[in-house]
């Protein structure tokens, strides 16, 4: 399935059903500003198929607003099983790891407390997509490893485990090694972004291909046509 970015916001009231421990910019490039009877927010609207509409929003007063987004469904989606089904679908289709879900409808909670899973840290399977997103956000849709390392902390709330020293390279942190591994030359297996044809290597970094942009479009990160890319890319 494909997550499509909608050009217009949902013309209905919405209800929060999940909180994801990722910044809004991690989820999508297509961010607009809005305001409702609660407050001002930044967010984006999406569709999956013909029936599912949802918003990702960050209100100014949300706790952990710098590092979380809240998933909203239209008010008329009330059946608990349907809500759960849609939340699960959104997480899968937007390539968001389960560990990033800090709360979802049906789980108990305490007002004013959003707790990140202790399991949530930057792993290689997630960083592959993350560096693709970061490179796609850069001029020429390319980035050096230095640029990727500079940008990763803006897109991902690095946990204490991520920030601990690497056992193999004492002068580097674990997350920096994970980023290095994701683009290193020996990682050309079918699961890598290079093996998938989503990116190609350039000196010192990577460049996102047309297929890579198509993939990012399919997970709602972007809605670019890729028309400025040649067929070779």
């Amino acid at each position, binding site marked *: 399935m494909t997550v499509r970015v909608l050009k217009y916001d949902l013309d209905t009231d919405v209800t929060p*059903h999940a909180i994801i421990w990722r910044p809004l910019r991690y989820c999508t490039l297509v961010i607009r500003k809005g305001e409702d009877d609660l*407050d001002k927010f930044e967010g984006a609207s999406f569709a999956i198929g013909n029936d599912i509409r949802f918003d990702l929003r960050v209100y100014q*007063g949300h*706790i*952990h607003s710098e590092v*979380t987004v809240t998933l909203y469904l239209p008010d008329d989606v009330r059946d608990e099983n349907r809500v759960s089904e849609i939340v699960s679908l959104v997480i899968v289709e937007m390539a968001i790891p389960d560990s990033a879900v800090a709360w979802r409808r049906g789980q108990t*909670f*305490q*007002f*004013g407390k959003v707790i990140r899973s202790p399991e949530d840290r930057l792993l290689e399977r997630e960083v592959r997509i993350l560096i693709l997103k970061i490179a796609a956000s850069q001029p020429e849709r390319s980035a050096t490893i230095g640029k990727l390392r500079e940008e990763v902390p803006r897109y991902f709330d690095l946990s204490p485990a991520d920030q601990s020293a690497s056992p193999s390279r004492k002068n580097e942190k674990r997350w920096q090694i994970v980023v290095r591994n994701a683009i290193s030359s020996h990682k050309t297996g079918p699961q890598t972004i290079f093996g998938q044809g989503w990116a190609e290597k350039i000196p010192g970094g990577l460049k996102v291909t047309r297929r890579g942009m198509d993939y990012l479009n399919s997970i709602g990160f972007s809605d670019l046509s890729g028309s400025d890319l040649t067929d070779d890319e």
Partner: protein
Amino acid sequence: MKAYPGNLPNRRGIEFTTDIEPMPGSAPNEARWYWEWCPKVLLRQKDGEDFACIPVTGFKNMQP
């Protein structure tokens, strides 16, 4: 009716406390009350517009 849980440090808004439990549809970062689902939530009208109202036990106006 929607509100952020907790205080409103350095933010404009209305800070209040209430004994009325927030309703289903709330989330850890957002409390909500709906008049048609909760008998303790009152419906009041002003200038032809409907407002959901809840009794408050404390109130601080932090509008500029």
